[in-house]
Each structure stands twice: as structure tokens, then as C-alpha cells.
């Protein structure tokens, strides 16, 4: 496997290379992403990812919206971690104007983030199985995810894009059935998750296709900013929930999952183990939601004091960073999102070079990329 510099990749196409295009419409890249792949027989020489097909100018749009209005745009970046994206902006605003949210809000926000994490990992498992060729995995993953979507539907009215966590607390209070449904879901999913192991994890074909594939060393993971489950599979302890706890994460007891092989198999196992850990977190919190208000008292027009603010949260894909420069008005002067998928995508040339096309699919599946997050 050759070490390739990003600069070299972007300028290295020569005549005589056998170039094929994978994407932008392709059943296997989860979103509109184009890989320009150079092949030597069946082996990959280099891969150039071309993103930007779903660029909507979210950061620019934020410059003329007020802070509560920005929440609905953050939903649409990484739509499977919608709650966590909303939480990032809300925490930043609350920190900047110095408002303290009630305990109830913190607990509910944590539970919603963990439910969102499980839902995101379920969909990742479904899509990864499908990419590998085990088409039934897709349906099992989605079937189980429907239960979480029903929980969300009942409390917030929408299944995917909620805009529920807003600066000051929550948009509304949770539904009375929320706790009951969540507990039922945990009971149901604890029985179903071992099935995932029997179908895909334990399968020898799957093991052979993912072990030793796309190895990312710890040094490289740190220098590329390869966070989230991918980074933790390379032994990079980057879980924001442990390092810089926010909401109710300092009150719960959970493990940070680390493996040190750094290949596709380790990335797979990290996510399955994270699903178990998320269920543990939810179980610790669900019965103890304190009573109280579902929002703190906020002014009708939120103006951040002049200055620069930032906030980091752990989404299902990695570390999301929000950075705001405010000139004291009700719109941010500049808003920037450091999205995890952007940093997870670009090392793909280094990971995939020297392997076969089938491995490119396995590697990009294990990175769990959500393309709108890359493009914003």
C-alpha cells in the first residue's frame, strides 16, 4: 500500500491510466459522491473522491437567519444524527448567552441523542450488509429502526428531521408515552441485536472480506482528524462524551469502545458495541427523568454577545464542531461546521490503494459516510 499525499492525488491523473467513475448515481455510495478510480487490472491505484453534488450553502444561509431558525438547517446536514446536530447549536447559544437549562432538558437531550445514535448505526448496518451482498440485512436493520422512528413520530411529529432541540431547551415537552415506548424498544432490541451478529458478524465470508482491509494507523487517524467510531477503531480515544462531557453524559456510566487493529472489521465491531453501550445509557436515564420545565426562559430575540464561540458534540459519525463569529447581532456573522464525514472521507485513497474494487465498497461502507454532511 503506497502512502499518497492529497496534493499528489488531485493532480496525478495521467494518460494511460484506466479510469472508471463510481458514482455519482450508484446503488452503493450512500448519497451523491463520485469516486474517480484508477485501476490496474483488478487492483486500485488511487481514488479521487469528488464531493459537492449536494452543496446547499448551509453555512452561508446561516448568516441571514436567527439562531432558532438555524436549527432546522442543521437537521439536514447529517440527517441521521439530527438531534445531535441540533444539540450542538443549542449548546453553543446557551453557553454564549450564559443560560442554564433545566435538568429535565439535559436528560431528555441525552436520551434523544442516544436513540439517534442507535438509529444511525442500525441504518449503517443495513446499508453495509447490502453493500456486501447480504441483501436481507437491509430489511432487518430498517425494520428495527422503525420502532425508534415511531417513538420520534409520537413525540415530535416527524420521523427524520425533527428540529426539536432548540436554544433554551426543547420545542415541546415529550409525549407521556415516550418512556413506555422507549423501554419497550430496548427490550425488543436487546433480543434482536444478537441476530445481527449471527447473520453478518459471525459470517466467515464477511470476516474475510473485512479483516485486514483499509487499515488506518493511530498516527494517521490523529493527523487526519479521523474521529468517531472510525477513529476509535484505530485506538484514537476521541469520544467527546468522555473527554468534554455535555448534557447528562457525566452522570452516566458507559465505556468508550476502543480497538486497535484499525481495519474495517474493527470499525464494524466498534459500532455494534456502541449500540449496546447506548442501550445501557438509555436504561440508566429513562426512569430518572426529573420533572421541571422543558425550556429555560429565553428572550424572544436571541443576540449573542460579540466574540467567537465554539462547541463540540459527538454525533453518530464522529466529532461535530460548530464555530460562530458574532458581531452582537441576532444573526451570526460567520458560522462554520466542522463535520465528521468530511474528515472521514478524504483518507480513502490511502486506505483503498492496493486493494480491489470490491474492497473500495467495503471500506467506504465501513466509514459510514453521509454525503450531505460532507457537502453541507
Amino acid at each position, binding site marked *: 500500500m503506497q502512502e499518497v499525499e492529497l496534493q499528489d492525488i488531485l493532480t496525478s491523473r495521467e494518460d494511460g491510466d484506466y479510469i472508471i467513475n463510481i458514482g455519482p448515481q450508484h446503488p452503493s455510495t450512500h448519497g451523491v459522491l463520485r469516486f474517480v478510480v484508477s485501476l490496474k487490472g483488478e487492483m486500485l491505484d488511487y481514488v479521487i473522491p469528488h464531493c459537492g453534488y449536494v452543496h446547499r450553502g448551509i453555512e452561508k444561509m446561516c448568516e441571514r*437567519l436567527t439562531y*432558532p*431558525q438555524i*436549527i*432546522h*438547517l442543521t437537521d439536514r446536514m447529517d440527517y441521521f444524527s439530527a438531534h445531535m446536530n441540533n444539540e450542538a447549536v443549542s449548546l453553543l447559544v446557551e453557553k454564549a448567552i450564559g443560560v442554564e437549562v433545566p*435538568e429535565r432538558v439535559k*436528560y431528555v437531550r441525552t436520551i434523544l441523542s442516544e436513540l439517534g445514535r442507535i438509529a444511525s448505526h442500525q441504518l449503517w448496518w443495513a446499508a453495509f450488509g447490502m453493500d456486501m451482498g447480504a441483501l*436481507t440485512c437491509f430489511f432487518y436493520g430498517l*425494520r428495527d429502526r*422503525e420502532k425508534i422512528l415511531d417513538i420520534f*413520530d*409520537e*413525540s*415530535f*411529529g*416527524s420521523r427524520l*428531521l425533527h*428540529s426539536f432541540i432548540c436554544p433554551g431547551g426543547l*420545542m*415541546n*415537552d*415529550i*409525549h*407521556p408515552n*415516550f*418512556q413506555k415506548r422507549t423501554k419497550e424498544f430496548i427490550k425488543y432490541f436487546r433480543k434482536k441485536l444478537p*441476530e445481527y451478529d*449471527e*447473520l*453478518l458478524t*459471525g*459470517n*466467515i*465470508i464477511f470476516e474475510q472480506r473485512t479483516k485486514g482491509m483499509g487499515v488506518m494507523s493511530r498516527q494517521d487517524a490523529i493527523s487526519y482528524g479521523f474521529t468517531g467510531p472510525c477513529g476509535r477503531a484505530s485506538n484514537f480515544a476521541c469520544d467527546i462524551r468522555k473527554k468534554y462531557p455535555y448534557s447528562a453524559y457525566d452522570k452516566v456510566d458507559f465505556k468508550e469502545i476502543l480497538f486497535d487493529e484499525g481495519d474495517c472489521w474493527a470499525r464494524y465491531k466498534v459500532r455494534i458495541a456502541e449500540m449496546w453501550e447506548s442501550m445501557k445509557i438509555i436504561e440508566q436515564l429513562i*426512569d*430518572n*427523568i*426529573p*420533572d421541571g420545565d*422543558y425550556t429555560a426562559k429565553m428572550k424572544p430575540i436571541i443576540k449573542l454577545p460579540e466574540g467567537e464561540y465554539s462547541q463540540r458534540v459527538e454525533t453518530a459519525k464522529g466529532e461535530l464542531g460548530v464555530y460562530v463569529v458574532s458581531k452582537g447581532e441576532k444573526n451570526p456573522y460567520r458560522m462554520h461546521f466542522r463535520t465528521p464525514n468530511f474528515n472521514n472521507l478524504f483518507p480513502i485513497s490511502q486506505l483503498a490503494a492496493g486493494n480491489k474494487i470490491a474492497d473500495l465498497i467495503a471500506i467506504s461502507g465501513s466509514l459510514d459516510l453521509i454525503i450531505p454532511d460532507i457537502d453541507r
Partner: protein
Amino acid sequence: MNSVGKYFSDIFYGLKTLWKGLMVTGYYFVHPRQIVTEQYPENRKELQMFDRFKGEVILKHDENNFHTCNGCGICQLNCPNGSIEIITDMAPNEEGKPVRIIDKHIYHLSMCTFCGLCVKNCPSDSLAFSQAFEHAVFDRNKLTKILNQPGSRIKKEPKAPKPVLETAPKSNPAN
């Protein structure tokens, strides 16, 4: 000898894992009760969305065709992408003073992102989400709706406290 042993143990390990996978799909094959598909057009009568389902924004009208919108325009200010347009008019009220009334409350369903800011921030609590989910039309102009029904007027009533959505039952305080 070690490699021969490993050869055979690989084969048996492989066959065992494959067998376990087959059992999972085989189980679902012989249990058709586990089918989760909903037969959509046939079950329309029984389909019930959840109470809080965000179908589309409507202006609440009671049985006498009264609504409570006074045309303040706060929903229009809050909407992030301009899906609401308020056209107001001046008309005399019971005392004869000209006050602002709502003429047309235009709602662009095609642009709405269902963020809920209009419903939450309405001071007279006149907007709500309905549970209609079948919005497909052949003509895009049908997606621009006028929310106040013809002939409806604002209802004048003493100031009632804004209703709160039902909350979760009281649970034990956190330890």
C-alpha cells in the same frame, strides 16, 4: 500437522457460521406473521397518524368558522424561508375603530420545512399542524394554500391562558 489441523478447523468453523446465518433467514421464512409491510392503499381507512404528526400547517377554525388570527405577521417573521405570506387589511371592528384583520394567510406547502417555529411562536395560538399526509398533486400551484377559510372571522374572546401540551406523568425525582 498444524496447518492440516488449521485447514480442517477453518472449514468446520466456516460451515458453522454459515449454518447460523441460514437459521436466521430460515426462521423468518417459516414465520409469515413477522411480516411488517403495510398494504397502503387498502388500509387508508385504518391509518391513523400520531397526534403530533406534522402533516401541514393549518389555521384552526372552530365549528362556527371562527379563527383567532389577527394578522400580526410574527409567523411570517419567524419562517426561515418565506413559506408564509400575510396580507392584511383594515376593517372596522364592533366599536367602529379600524383594526387590522387578516385578508389572506398564504402558506407555500412546497417550500415549508416543517420546523414548527410558526406554530410555536404564534401569540394567539391560531396555527397548528394537521395530520394530512397525502399531499401529492399534479399541479404545483395547488401547493400554495390560503389558510383562512372563506367567510371566517376572528373570534373575540377574553384572554385565555395559552394551552400547554400534555406532559409526561410525574416521575421519581433524580437521585
